[in-house]
């Protein structure tokens, strides 16, 4: 819309108004300044008709013009500003062509730096073009990380969000042709031995330490045809295979607070706001701190990264009264059970079967010590290759002798 505000000077202004009414010219904001002067607003499309109606009886002066058309006219008349705006738009557009930030989620054993380096190698880095083939980057990442279960790259404007899911570390594959033993990977009480190849050397109920032999790959040759040297029996070397289940004990120690801190709201609060432009931050809550103890709540209203890193948030300081309360046993036990579940999830392999668990609480001055014992049934076998070099030479010679 395009509106023109004019000053009309002349006798009998009501006559002009009546004529406009008759001709269908819509008028707004008619201010009668005096008997001879009035100001009014009309649409630009009626301008010609209005000028014809006023004839020579009135003098009309344009006071201002408002609307999109005059705004554009003014804007286009200023070439420097126009170039500035065009340059600004171009810069914004140009910036939007590149990835400005990469956020990585879901890593556990790898460091963020490591992942960033690999991503850079795959072609995704801060400052690279957005037209990059993300599928190719994903495939490259799978090639670079052997135990990567899944990777997803999502572009949100100039932000690239990389989510990774790490798989379990691949079990080193032992060459099937090579002879090997199965030894204990951790200590425990043997429950069951299934030796598919090789010979089990432990019985149910035996206690084994880490590194103890469980299934041997060296099987003595029992040949009844020929007499053998009892001190030097011949051996057959096999690739030991099988499972050895043992009861393993895990012990975890956690600590809990004896007293719990309660925050009771008093109802008094202090509103405030915070502005962050780049590295500069202003927060009214840093200056005005009317309460001794308060909780701080923030609601982010504006948070942009590009073209300018601006954040605007409103906040509230709510006054609280601090109160210490001794925790009851039920609560402590509930928390301990939670800690138990966390410990199982974190430290005990998924394949293990939990047989039993126990919690032991011992009170100290200000804290409660929680000792968690978990009994699990798991396969503790680990293959290790051995080289029967010296023994085989001896064995061979003996075998040679015995066959002769």
């Amino acid at each position, binding site marked *: 819309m395009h509106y023109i505000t004019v000053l009309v000077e002349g006798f009998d202004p*009501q006559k002009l*108004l*009546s004529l*406009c009414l*008759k001709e269908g*010219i*819509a008028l*707004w*904001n*008619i201010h009668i300044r005096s008997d001879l002067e009035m100001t009014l607003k009309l649409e630009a499309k009626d301008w010609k008709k209005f000028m014809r109606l006023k004839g020579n009886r009135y003098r009309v002066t344009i006071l201002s013009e408002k609307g999109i058309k005059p705004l554009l006219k003014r804007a286009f008349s200023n070439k420097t500003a126009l170039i500035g705006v065009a340059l600004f738009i171009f810069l914004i557009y140009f910036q939007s062509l590149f990835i400005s930030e990469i956020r990585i989620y879901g890593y556990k054993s790898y460091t963020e730096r490591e992942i960033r380096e690999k991503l850079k190698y795959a072609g995704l880095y801060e400052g690279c073009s957005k037209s990059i083939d993300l599928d190719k980057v994903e495939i490259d990442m799978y090639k670079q990380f052997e135990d990567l279960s899944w990777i997803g790259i999502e572009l949100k404007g100039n932000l690239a969000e990389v989510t990774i899911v790490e798989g379990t570390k691949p079990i080193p594959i032992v060459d099937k042709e090579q002879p090997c033993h199965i030894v204990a990977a951790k200590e425990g009480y043997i429950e069951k031995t299934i030796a598919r190849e090789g010979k089990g050397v432990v019985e149910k109920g035996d206690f084994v330490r880490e590194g103890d032999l469980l299934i041997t790959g060296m099987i003595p040759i029992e040949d009844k045809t020929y007499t053998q040297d009892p001190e030097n029996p011949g051996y057959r070397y096999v690739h030991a295979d099988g499972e050895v289940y043992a009861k393993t004990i895990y012990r975890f120690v956690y600590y809990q607070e004896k007293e719990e801190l309660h925050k009771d709201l008093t109802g008094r609060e202090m509103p405030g706001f915070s502005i962050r432009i780049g590295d500069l931050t202003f927060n009214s809550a840093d200056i005005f701190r009317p309460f001794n103890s308060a909780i701080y709540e923030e609601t982010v209203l504006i948070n942009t990264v590009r073209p300018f890193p601006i954040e605007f948030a409103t906040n509230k300081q709510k006054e609280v009264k601090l109160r210490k309360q001794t925790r009851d046993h039920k609560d402590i036990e509930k928390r301990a059970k939670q800690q138990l579940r966390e410990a199982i999830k974190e430290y005990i392999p998924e394949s293990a079967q939990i047989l039993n668990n126990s919690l032991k609480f011992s009170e100290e001055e200000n804290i409660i010590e929680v000792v968690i014992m978990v009994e699990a049934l798991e396969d503790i076998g680990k293959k290790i290759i051995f080289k029967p070099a010296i023994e085989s030479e001896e064995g061979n010679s003996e075998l040679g002798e015995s066959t002769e």
Partner: protein
Amino acid sequence: MFIKDELIYDFSINMPRILVGGKTAILDNVKKIVLISNNNVVVSCGRKYISVTGRDLIVRQLAEERMLISGNIDNIEFYGSGE
């Protein structure tokens, strides 16, 4: 209101019709402006005239036989006999 009265009210295009609320008055069936000033607006509605008297009167809109006046309205008068 009977339907006859309502029809007369709606279709009497040469009679004054005014709606006033607070500081605003809407005048309908405005055919001609007889007098206009800061304190007084007199319009012809065909058969009768309406006079709105007050202080700091401004005509906010004037289009399609309708006039919207705002300001401190003190007095509204109808006169002229077009019976």
